[in-house]
């Protein structure tokens, strides 16, 4: 029987496999263009997870901004910068020991928390779907964004302005 819960679980595992496989392939490929392609797979998995959690606006933002914007920026830079020499050299710095130590420490903490912390935080219970609202996700999000978080929104726009000016200054030949 294909109940809604089962459908949701199957979709979750498909998207989670996309996210994790894409991430692992991103950090292990020799060719940076291949890494970028697998990063797109990973980002599309994340977009699917947003859709699964009824965050439709973030789904659209993820596709348009991340896959359409940031990844095109990455691909342009990969083509501007000559990576042929770098692809022939050693790909990994000798920091495997410290990386594995960090990962083991943080991973042990997180999974210990997930094992122990379920009860106080009620994270191990399936979420109750909110009552259907007349407004869609985008309208509700706009209400919260432009009423409660108006000042952070303006600060974020200044941050973007500074980033645009900064990246143009960085990429100029002569300042």
């Amino acid at each position, binding site marked *: 029987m294909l109940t809604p819960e089962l459908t*949701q679980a199957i979709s979750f595992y498909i998207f989670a496999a996309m996210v994790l496989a894409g991430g692992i392939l*991103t950090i292990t490929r020799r060719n*940076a263009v291949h890494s970028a392609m697998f990063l797109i797979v990973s*980002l599309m998995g994340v977009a699917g997870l947003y859709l699964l959690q009824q965050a439709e606006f973030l789904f659209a933002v993820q596709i348009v901004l*991340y896959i359409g914007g940031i990844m095109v920026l990455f691909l342009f*830079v990969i083509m*501007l910068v000559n990576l042929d020499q770098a692809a022939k050299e050693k790909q990994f*710095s000798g920091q495997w020991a*410290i990386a594995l130590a960090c990962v083991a420490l943080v991973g042990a903490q997180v999974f210990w928390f997930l094992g122990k912390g379920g009860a106080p935080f009620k994270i191990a219970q399936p979420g109750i779907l909110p009552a259907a609202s007349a407004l869609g996700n985008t309208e509700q999000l706009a209400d919260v964004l432009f009423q409660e978080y108006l000042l952070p929104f303006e600060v974020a726009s200044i941050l973007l302005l500074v980033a645009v000016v900064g990246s143009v200054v960085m990429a100029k030949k002569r300042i």
Partner: protein
Amino acid sequence: MYPITTAHYIALSAALLLIGTVGVLTRRNIVIILMSIELILNAVNINLVAFSQALHSLSGQVFAIFVITDAVAEAAVGLGILIALFRNKETVLADEVDLLKW
């Protein structure tokens, strides 16, 4: 295994965060280090949206929008620095940029 709970999303987000951390710490190519940072920021976003869903509050999704804004700014400035670096040093490998080392 199912139904899918918030704990599933947290576990996935932790795994993605750790993949990104390994990428940042072990790769030499700066382009791929920047991609690993994008993976880390996406792990944060998965967490924020999962808790937003669990707590029935849209603040988490608003914060995810701010995290995406930061990711865009970081990618633009980081890639600008990378182009300036390549123009001056002809390398994209992080451990060959050691002017401040002695």
